[in-house]
């Protein structure tokens, strides 16, 4: 790899600072007592504690999955603290009472916690370590019947809704990390869009891990009732530590008849240094259920951070004519490892799904697409189109594609295409010969490569994602 490429991929992580704030941290270790402690701290009803304990007992019997194409040292689940919350003096009456240190933290990260902030039009729920610290525009959204709050609050205020839907898409024993999350989740966002309501603004959650040796286990639940629609954004950052932090989140989406949920993520957890020291282990279960007819769930993700990413945002297309989409850019550099993709489970008739995955590997990284398209025997008329492209920058990285296609119905059509391309000396020389420098050439090639995915992102996110990829690749091309 030539020096221009080298320089282009090596930009220091910009969100790596630690906020000095007093936190209420539970002792390290996991047991039924830890779970009871979390549940008690959050003043949870008995049924939720039961759900947690059921998940925990399930988890004890499960084995860590070995099939992902990633390597990491064994995680000591007893060395993790399962609860960390910034200490607050009293219940907040308004945003002005948020700890100024926290406000500064999020200002630095560019997250508008202040409702008078310039970036209006987006309601934000902010999760710091394990706890939601603020939610903006709550009152305004409530006027149209939308509930947008932290999940802890939802448990207190809307227990019937939470109880009805929590764990209905990702059961407590679904997989190793989902079970762990179900046992110990501390906070996350809850959105409920009632029948017929089109959410007037994008909803957003910003996740921040701050404490070393703490895990982040957030839980997000989004329900769109009949005819409702919502666009939801998620952003993630963490400070630089030499140790690894575990992030095992669960996101459940439920779309009833004619409902539409769009879920966008820009994931930029700390990825570790160029030698692979530190970084987040990002083991996430995201699944949407298109429960109703004509419903639609669309996942868009730009994955640039984390030492290890293990994540398959999926759609279960149960309602007839429902639509599932997955648009993904996954960039790995240095020693990062990503095993990410999607599952599209076609059950309803005439269900359709689209998968567009763009993997970019640089440095010594390892980037795998893993996807499943399953057409059930009853899913007559189902269609899937998948396109998985890989781009390699340098000859020390790898790009893998593992598409599983399982078709059980002769009336279905499934198409999968994959290709590889590169940014190498010849491409850059061609640009240079036409007077265009390497940085501009790389940015143009990368944006062209990712275009189909970026088009799916809300405007500001698309701009941010483009910038982020540029920063991430700085130093790796040439």
């Amino acid at each position: 790899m030539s020096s221009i490429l080298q320089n282009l991929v090596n930009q220091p992580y910009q969100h790596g600072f630690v906020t000095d704030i007093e936190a209420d941290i539970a002792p390290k270790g996991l047991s039924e007592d830890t779970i009871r402690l979390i549940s008690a701290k959050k003043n949870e009803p008995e049924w939720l504690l039961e759900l947690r304990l059921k998940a925990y007992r399930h988890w004890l019997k499960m084995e860590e999955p070995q099939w992902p194409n990633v390597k990491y040292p064994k995680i000591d689940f007893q060395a993790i603290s399962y609860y960390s919350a910034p200490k607050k003096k009293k219940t907040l009456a308004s945003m002005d009472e948020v700890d100024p240190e926290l406000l500064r933290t999020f200002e630095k990260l560019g997250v508008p916690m202040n409702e008078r902030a310039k970036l209006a039009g987006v309601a934000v729920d902010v999760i710091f370590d394990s706890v939601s610290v603020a939610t903006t525009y709550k009152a305004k959204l409530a006027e149209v019947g939308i509930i947008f709050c932290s999940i802890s609050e939802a448990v207190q205020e809307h227990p019937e809704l939470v109880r009805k839907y929590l764990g209905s898409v990702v059961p407590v024993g679904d997989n190793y990390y989902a079970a762990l999350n179900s046992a110990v989740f501390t906070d996350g966002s809850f959105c409920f869009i009632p029948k017929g309501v089109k959410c007037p603004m994008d909803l957003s959650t910003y996740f921040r891990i701050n404490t070393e040796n703490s895990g982040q286990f957030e839980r997000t639940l989004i329900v769109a009732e009949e005819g409702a629609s919502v666009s939801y954004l998620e952003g993630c950052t963490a400070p630089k530590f030499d140790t690894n932090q575990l992030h095992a989140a669960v996101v459940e989406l439920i779309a009833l008849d004619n409902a539409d949920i769009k879920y966008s993520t820009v994931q930029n957890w700390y990825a570790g240094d160029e030698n692979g020291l530190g970084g987040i282990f990002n083991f996430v279960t995201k699944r949407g259920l298109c429960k109703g007819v004509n419903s639609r769930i669309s996942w868009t993700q730009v994955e640039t951070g984390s030492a290890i990413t293990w994540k398959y945002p999926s759609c279960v297309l149960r309602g007839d004519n429902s639509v599932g989409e997955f648009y993904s850019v996954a960039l790995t550099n240095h020693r990062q490892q990503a095993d990410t993709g999607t599952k599209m489970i076609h059950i309803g008739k005439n269900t359709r799904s689209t998968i567009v995955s763009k993997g970019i590997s640089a440095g010594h990284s390892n980037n795998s697409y893993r996807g499943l398209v399953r057409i059930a025997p009853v899913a007559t008329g189902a269609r899937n189109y998948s396109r998985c492209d890989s781009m390699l920058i340098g000859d020390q990285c790898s790009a893998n594609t593992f598409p599983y296609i399982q078709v059980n119905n002769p009336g279905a059509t499934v198409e999968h295409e994959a290709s590889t391309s590169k940014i190498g000396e010849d491409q850059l020389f061609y640009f240079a010969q036409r007077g265009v420098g390497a940085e501009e050439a790389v940015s143009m090639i990368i944006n062209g490569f990712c275009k189909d995915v970026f088009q799916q992102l809300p405007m500001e996110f698309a701009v941010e994602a483009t910038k982020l990829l540029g920063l991430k690749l700085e130093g790796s091309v040439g």
Partner: protein
Amino acid sequence: MIYQDSRTLLAVRDLRATVNGIEILKGIELTVKSGEVHAIMGPNGSGKSTFAKVLAGHPAYVVTGGEVAFDGGPLLELQPEERSRRGIFLGFQYPIEIPGVANSQFLRLAYNTLQVQRGKDELDPLEFDDFVREKMKLLEMNPDFLDRSVNEGFSGGEKKRNEILQMSLLDPKLAILDETDSGLDIDALRVVATGVNHLATRDNAIILVTHYQRLLNYITPDFVHVMDSGRIVKTGGKELALELEARGYEWVGAETSASAAANAGAAR
């Protein structure tokens, strides 16, 4: 055309270059003046394409000796993009495919980069669109090709037309066209040649690197050079190309090795 008042654009003295440690260019001498059209011919592996790439600054080649002056200044120390911006254009033998980058986007970026360099205003997408469509007419190009990715899925002819379109946009002082005729059918060859002839002026110069004489039926060279084993071994007028077509390259090689042997004999 050879003009009396022309100035020297390119002066190559004893140029030597290697790739992966193997010497390919073994002392090239060449002078090109404004207004001239030069053809460099030679058998496969004689170093023609290498010479073209070395002039454009391809990073895979290491210059190990000699000097090159371009437009009055030293060339070899410049980065490839600086050479381009000073007016060297290489028409690629195998134009690179760049999936995802629209041709219009690429052409505009290249054009505007040069405009800035020349202290002129950049064109916005609409202005540029009008401008480039005019240029495309000359090359009988279908406008839909602006929206396609750079060279991706282009036929051989489309790729070469795209190269000449770029040449017309960048208006270089020296255009080096590497095997521009390869892979072209007779119609495409005529269109490409017409484009090149149209772009040749008193102030610029063209070097055609080609294996066959065919292209020279359409673009008349002032000088024909024969390359063999990394050197220019024979120079003549356009009639030399016809002779090569009729007799092949072996006789030139035989002639030069015979004269080299004679020289060696004389030296002894």
